[in-house]
């Protein structure tokens, strides 16, 4: 493609670049540097080298494990459900437009509000336990958000509930671009439904899958609102994620340097995950 720099002056980039430098890159660089200090926001920061990182790996490993569990479950769950919805709603259904809108609506609402709705539903005296009680399943009634295992599952379920419709949209265009003739020809040649999906639809969805997994991984690592609203990180820190841990250490305990160190590890994790997923599938096929 011919490039014509004359009609695309650099001046057009300056305002956008300046704002990004001022609000994101500059402060982040400063934050990254403070990761190697004991800055508390008040006194002069003192250089402490790698002490913050050492301390985190000593006491914060549970947070890493919880973040990884949540991220893995969310990435697999939301993409599987989203892809399933896209396949089911690609065409032919009479009510497909209504259904698509219905699945997408939760993604339009504030994650904080959605989390509060589910806090109500999962409450000890809430509708879910009432339904279980009415159905005679009293043995299943429990404080869903008060136990570590069910609370972690609940956080993932709430996120999947809210964003599977968004992931459906990511896959919908890809699914629709698969030509019917190709599928019909394969069917005539005796390919079953699973083979047609695996050998025709799935390869064509590879770019969409890369986008879907990258987006969900990034949002899973940065998870904050839902945890704060549903459990506040409890019981006993059992559902704290890197996001809530950084917030508590930096903003609540005033340990900015330590919080920044953990945030820096978070950046590393996100970059690594994004790189693996965007490069991975492409490299294999190239």
């Amino acid at each position, binding site marked *: 493609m011919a490039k014509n720099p004359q009609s695309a002056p*650099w001046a057009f980039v300056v305002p956008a670049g300046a704002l990004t430098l001022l609000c994101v890159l500059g402060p982040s660089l400063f934050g990254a540097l403070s990761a190697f200090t004991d800055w508390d926001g008040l006194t002069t920061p003192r250089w402490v080298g790698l002490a913050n990182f050492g301390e985190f790996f000593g006491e914060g490993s549970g947070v890493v494990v919880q973040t990884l569990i949540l991220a893995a479950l969310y990435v697999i769950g939301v993409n599987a459900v989203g892809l399933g919805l896209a396949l089911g709603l690609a065409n032919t259904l009479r009510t497909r437009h209504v259904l698509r809108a219905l699945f997408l609506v939760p993604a339009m609402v504030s994650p904080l509000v959605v989390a509060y709705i589910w806090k109500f539903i999962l409450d000890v005296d809430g509708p879910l336990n009432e339904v279980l009680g009415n159905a005679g399943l009293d043995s299943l009634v429990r404080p869903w958000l008060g136990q570590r295992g069910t609370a972690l599952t609940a956080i993932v379920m709430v996120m999947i509930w809210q964003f599977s419709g968004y992931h459906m949209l990511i896959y919908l265009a890809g699914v629709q671009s698969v030509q019917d003739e190709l599928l019909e020809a394969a069917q005539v040649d005796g390919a079953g439904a699973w083979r047609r999906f695996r050998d025709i639809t799935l390869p064509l969805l590879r770019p969409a899958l890369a986008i879907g997994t990258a987006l969900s991984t990034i949002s899973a690592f940065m998870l904050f609102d839902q945890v704060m609203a549903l459990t506040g990180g409890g019981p006993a820190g059992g559902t704290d994620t890197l996001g809530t841990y*950084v917030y508590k250490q930096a*903003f609540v305990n005033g340990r900015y340097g330590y919080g920044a160190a953990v945030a820096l590890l978070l950046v590393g994790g996100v970059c690594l995950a994004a790189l693996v997923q965007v490069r991975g599938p492409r490299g294999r096929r190239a």
Partner: protein
Amino acid sequence: MNGYGRWTAFREVGLWIGALPMLAPVYLVLTTAFRDRSETGGSTLAPPAAPTLSNMRRAWTEAGGGTESFSQALFNSVLTTCAVVLLLVVLAAPAGYVLARRGSRLSAVVFGLFTLALIMPIQIGMIPLYAVMVEAGLTGTRVGLILVYLGLEMPLAVFLYTGYFRGMPTAYEEAARVDGARPLRVFVQIVFPLMRPATGVVATLTGLFVWNDFFVALVFTGDTDKATLPVAVYSFVGRFTAEWPLIFAAALLAAAPVLALFAFAQRSVMKGFSSTLHG
């Protein structure tokens, strides 16, 4: 493949059953928000015995997060969201255009910096940014909040515009340039109208983010009369613990404008989403 057979009907019914978990919470929010607050101890599943608007009225007049009333928080949200989206489009579209059209190593580096800013967790730069804004006397002000949102959402907007414009042919611009049009005119009259689908997506994604965002609004405008709706809802939860009828009435009021807009522009929103995601 396009026929409507028994299998398709089965799929249609199946998906509606699958949609029930989507609908159940909506039902619970509505019944709770319209339930009279004196109706306690009963089932949380039953429809309200005497549906009432009193929760809505009370939520509307209650102060939230330093604002005098819900309507003030609503006004703050509308003003902040509109200003951010408008300025973002005006500033990000030209930047994306340049980055897409210049093939130099420098433009690749600049694009890389925007991408780095895009995946940077918000927490790492938040404290230094907050310190700078306090120094500049911009915390608790509309200008400050708009400035912060602009900076935080700029990488996404530039990223989307660049990606979209890379796939567009250069013929129109070149024709205009040969005719002697200056860069700014080429951009305003030729390029920007061609970017309309991308503008739709940028406006939708960033508008939704700003409208729904809680963390940034809490840090920069919490406990002031410039607070936005999510902060107001949050303060409701703090003040009326477990008073779900009031909390859900407030949540409904906060979500209503977005849902109305979605119902109105549903097709274009969905089309825009999927077209840029693959652009």
